[in-house]
């Protein structure tokens, strides 16, 4: 793993996420930013994919079950070369190929349509099952939200995955501690995700969701499993990587105030300087 290269890729994803949402004027900042590190490791280092041939049959699959993180995924796909960066500025505009929630029929590189929470994980299980039935060694990666795990379907999917020993299925839990209406512990206390996923038959690890190395190493460790599907709980924060947004209380969906907008512009400029780019804001 070339850490320096991966850090630059991560910064590029975070920058693009901020720029596309800032350009749109509103959106799911919190949960798009909290998955940037996981996306960077998957698309920058781990996944077997071909951006020139998004539907390559022999690829690994990625399903963003927490579909409202779409802008983070689009920033990643664009940085990876699936489509031009300019497209990011059409996010949610009339006739766009980048709707707020991922649509596999609109966006190159999006493997499954998601947005209605709880459903993407079942589709990921289906893909992993298909590979297993065909004796293929491809991996399926899925990110679910901590709030999303309120949905009963997620637990149906995990039971099914464990029963069928889908050891090439990775489920990442974006444990950013918040859902739309507030803290997860206040709305539906998730208790201990590690204990829960272990009880549901997953090989379970908890890592610092800001650490590229820890995420990468957890995936490497998970790949050594021969029976169990793998759950990697990402200890994250909403708005991750932008201190102002991390501290903002109501940061699931943001329509920036003047103060917010100033802070977002500063974050964009800082990332651009870090990446040696011309400052655009």
């Amino acid at each position, binding site marked *: 793993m070339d850490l320096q290269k991966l850090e630059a890729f991560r910064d590029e994803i975070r920058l693009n996420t901020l720029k596309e949402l800032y350009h749109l004027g509103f959106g799911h900042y919190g949960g798009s930013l909290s998955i940037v590190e996981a996306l960077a490791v998957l698309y920058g280092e781990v996944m077997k994919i071909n951006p020139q041939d998004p539907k390559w049959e022999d690829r690994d699959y990625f399903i963003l079950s927490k579909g409202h993180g779409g802008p983070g995924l689009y920033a990643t796909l664009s940085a990876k070369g699936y489509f031009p960066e300019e497209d990011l500025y059409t996010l949610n505009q009339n006739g766009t190929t980048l709707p707020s929630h991922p649509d596999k029929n609109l966006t190159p590189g999006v493997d499954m*349509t998601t947005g209605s929470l709880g459903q993407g994980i*079942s*589709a990921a*299980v*289906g893909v992993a099952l298909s590979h297993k*039935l065909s004796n293929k060694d491809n991996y399926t990666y899925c990110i679910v939200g901590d709030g999303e795990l309120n949905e009963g*379907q997620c637990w*149906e999917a995990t039971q*099914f995955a464990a029963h*069928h020993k889908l050891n090439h299925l990775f489920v990442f839990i974006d444990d950013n501690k918040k859902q739309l209406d507030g803290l997860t512990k206040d709305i539906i206390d998730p208790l201990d995700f590690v204990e829960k996923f272990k009880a549901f038959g997953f090989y379970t690890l908890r890592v610092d969701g800001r650490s590229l190395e820890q995420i990468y190493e957890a995936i490497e460790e998970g790949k050594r499993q021969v029976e169990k599907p793998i759950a990697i709980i990402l200890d994250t924060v909403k708005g991750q990587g932008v201190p102002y947004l991390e501290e903002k209380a109501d940061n699931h969906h943001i329509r920036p105030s003047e103060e917010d907008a100033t802070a977002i512009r500063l974050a964009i400029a800082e990332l651009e300087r870090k990446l040696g780019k011309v400052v655009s804001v």
Partner: protein
Amino acid sequence: MISTPSKHYELEKVEMRQMYANTLVELAQGNPDVIALEADLMSAISTNKIVKQIPTQIINGGIMEANMMGVAAGLSLTGKIPYVHTFGQFATRRTFDQLFVSGAYAKTNIKILGSDAGVTAEHNGGTHMAFEDIGLVRLLPNATVYEVSDSTMLRFLLRKIEKEHGIHYIRTIRKNAVKLYDENEVFEEGKGKVLREGGDVTIIASGIMVAESLKAADLLYEQGIEATVIDMFSIKPIDKDLIVKYASKTGAVVTAENHNVIGGLGSAVAEVLSEHCPTKMRRIGVKEQFGQVGKLEYLKEFYELTPKDIAGAAKELL
């Protein structure tokens, strides 16, 4: 086609569920991509008897219908052809959002068998008696909805949809249907079958109501009224041309369905007629009611789904 009245309506020897199971074996043995999914109702649909024949191509996903639809969608992303079965109410109203988002909206490829159509759920009663499944699936853009009337049709359509991409819903009873078709009969999407010709009134039916409508035509014939009977097994897309042709010819249309009259066959026919050929019509079907336990004949009487009800509606129009 039955050109002369017949009073002999014999039940088939093979049950619909046996035909489903047998056809799955044919499909799976012919194509390694065919995967059957069940939700703990294998013994109800007889697929428990075929596990040994296609062990790697049939999966019991447990009592998790929402997940089953999602898994089916995921299987189809990688080229598998999932055939999903559960009772009609679970296949549609319990999983409607999965069917909508992971199915139709995502444009995945899922074949769904919804069993125990309407009153044929009998002793399972109101919780299990789907009168709204056709209406729900009909709302999904580009979905195909069939209600099969005999086992020849069931087998034909199961085989036909193997190579067709999209959401296909087949509604069926589990037990023996009245035999209607020869083994070599061919069925097309969007094409109804005229089973009997008569110039006074047109009866358009699906599923178990096709045989009831033929019996109604016999009753009408005894009273000097000649009825056309159409098996409109393809409810979406529906056979607009055939409906308009016979509505024009007879000037009176009765629909007959084992389903709520809102959203199902009656609605679909009324939609065609009101736009293309306004015609007097009556809808035989379930009206603003839920299901209940009971024997089939009792339930048919209760919900007014008998040949007498159909013939009565026809006479009202003349």
